[in-house]
């Protein structure tokens, strides 16, 4: 079913020039060839600059004749990406997919999407509305989200927040403390308990 030899070639090819392309692909859990994890760097000169965005990739059995399923894991403020669940509205991941495209080209397209939002064909109506009505505010929010969720110190921040919130601390306090401790869970816990 799944063309494993092509996926293996793509893994090799995808990471060949990570430094320059800003794109990398890895197996999600080391064994399953249908579940991958990609990253893209935020394009320079955009509110996403400096961020690293993690994308969950699932390959259907018809891959590469059917498009890969991609979704942002890192939270991102963008008209074509759901601020709730990271779902992506991009034609090449839907009806414009071609088997001659690759995971790498798809990730590069996502990177291009970060540079050039298409608010007229939105995935997230709230974000799109803000983009169209108050661009400055949009840039501010997008930058803030990049700082909060996509900076290396905060990669995995959400999981940490979730863990601490589940222990019974209020989310606002948890986020503030984690930011202060640069994402160090143990230090944050200590502070929360003492504070």
């Amino acid at each position, binding site marked *: 079913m799944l*063309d494993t*030899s*092509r996926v293996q*070639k793509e893994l090799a090819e995808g990471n060949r020039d990570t430094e320059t392309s800003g794109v990398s692909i890895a197996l999600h859990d080391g064994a399953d060839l249908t579940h991958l994890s990609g990253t893209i760097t935020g394009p320079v000169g955009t509110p996403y600059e400096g961020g690293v965005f993690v994308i969950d990739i699932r390959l259907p059995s*018809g891959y*590469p*004749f*059917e498009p890969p399923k991609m979704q942002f894991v890192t939270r991102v403020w963008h008209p074509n990406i759901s601020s709730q669940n990271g779902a992506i509205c991009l*034609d*090449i991941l*839907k*009806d*414009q997919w*071609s*088997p*001659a*495209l690759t995971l790498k080209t798809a990730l590069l397209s996502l990177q291009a999407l970060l540079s050039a939002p298409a608010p007229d064909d939105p995935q997230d109506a709230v974000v799109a509305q803000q983009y169209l009505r108050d661009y400055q505010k949009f840039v501010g929010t997008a930058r803030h989200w990049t700082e909060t969720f996509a900076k290396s110190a905060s990669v995995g921040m959400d999981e940490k927040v979730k863990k601490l919130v589940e222990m019974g601390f209020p989310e606002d306090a948890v986020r503030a403390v984690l930011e202060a401790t640069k994402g160090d869970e143990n230090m944050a816990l200590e502070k929360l308990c003492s504070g």
Partner: protein
Amino acid sequence: MDSEDDMHDAHDVESLDDDFYSGDTPMGSEDGDAEYDFVDNESEDSEDVTSHRQQQSYTILSVSDIRQRQEEDIHRVSTVLSISRVAACVLLRHYKWSVSRVHDEWFADEENVRKVVGLLEKPVEMPNARELPCGICFESYSSNEMTAAACGHPFCSACWRGYVGTAISDGPGCLMLRCPDPSCGVAVGEDMIRMLASDEDKQKYSRYLLRSYIEDNRKTKWCPAPGCEFAVEFVMGSSSYDVTCNCSYSFCWNCTEEAHRPVDCATVAKWILKNCAESENMNWILANSKPCPKCKRPIEKNQGCMHITCTPPCKFEFCWLCLGAWSEHGERTGGFYACNRYEAAKQEGAYDESERRREMAKNSLERYTHYYERWATNQSSRQKALADLHSMQNEKLEKLSDRQSQPESQLKFIIEAWLQIVECRRVLKWTYAYGYYLLENEYAKRQFFEYLQGEAEAGLERLHQCAEKELQVYLEAEAPTKDFNYFRTKLAGLTSVTRNYFENLVRALETGLRDVGPSGNQANANKNTSPKSLLGGKGGKSGKAKVIGTSSRSGDEAWTMATIGLASTAPTRTRGRQTCARCANSTGRFGLCCLLLCD
């Protein structure tokens, strides 16, 4: 895939243009479309051609007709443009099978059309190398193992098969398949499919191609009857949307619901939606049994007409719809047929607010129930009539011909009666959807409408009863019955009279009851009710005794009694009265005095 739209085309300027040609334009608004050779010889202003026009307004196409037309169109384009059959097919599919549009676009800007559709002027050879990398699986193959479309982009056979197979199983979008190279866009036509697809997929592809010819063309639609394979080609601008398929299903070409003339598509859509919303409340209406209003035993309705007679010993005759005594249906008691009207329960005395609300909610459901029950019952009545019609055609007519020593050719009037019943049940059914949406405050219109509907319904009940029950006697007779000619006259007469009533009703609804002004002018009503007969205002001297005398012969007391009823006892209801064309007697509503009773 989200849509059938050509995937590589979504961003073309051309696709904007396509919208202009897609089915969004209102009916009949297209001119100068010469792609089919329809010749509309009929003048627009003549009313007399209406029925003729209806026969001319559409063509039923079988699968082989469709294939033939499609093949002819492809051949035409391929000949005129000097391109291959496959290329002509791609072009036609892109321009929604409009030969004239393909020609127009092509001769206006061939280069652009080629680009948009993905047709190269000259095919490009595959790169000249012993080994070539496949652009999908990234393996290398010797060049003779590779295949390419006209663009020369090589892919290995396994990848081509995967590509084509996935596209075909994705749906009709495969008809617009392009080279897998994302920068290319050259069309992958039927020749490639033949070469690369499995037999099953080839069949699927050819079905999609056939379907596309009907579904993408504004002038054709499939018959919506389940399992039916005919399509209907419609002449835009025709006076009626009703079409009857060769499978005998009648439907509205515009909205593809079953035929609903004289009610418009919007009302029908609203009504169907309403029925869905209320379906749980209404299930009981579809039950086939009700308690007899007199003896309370459950009585099953296994006939088409609404005149029910309880089983012995009760034998109470009642109306299935309102459960009132049948003897009170019609003019016998001085009223006229009123079972079709909804009268909200009169409220008296003061109500507190919550009580009034409850009452209103109850009324609105009651009101809907009234119309829905009549709509649904006429529907099932029509089904029954349809079954009776078929059994008449298939066996009973022969039997009757035998029993009554009549050649079958002399029994056509029975088939005609049944056809009339089937059609009238359909019309009557839809007039109840119409009635439901006719505003309560349009008093004059409502009154006129209910009057016409009541007339038509009463006539239909008599016709249906005559065809259903009275015929039975002659079918069961051991020897030819001398009354049979009388029966013939009566049934044929009822058929023609009922047809007139329904024609009036249909005409009135189709003109939006516009002959009734806000004042509800009765003279107007009169003129519309019976345009072909003289108005009889002379009172009720229609010879009661005479009629009653004949009633014993007819064996249908209810019918004759009802007939004289209006003339003799309903001075306030003279609108519907007609003068018998032969004896000048005022005869009541049926105008049948001579035909049936005066000879």
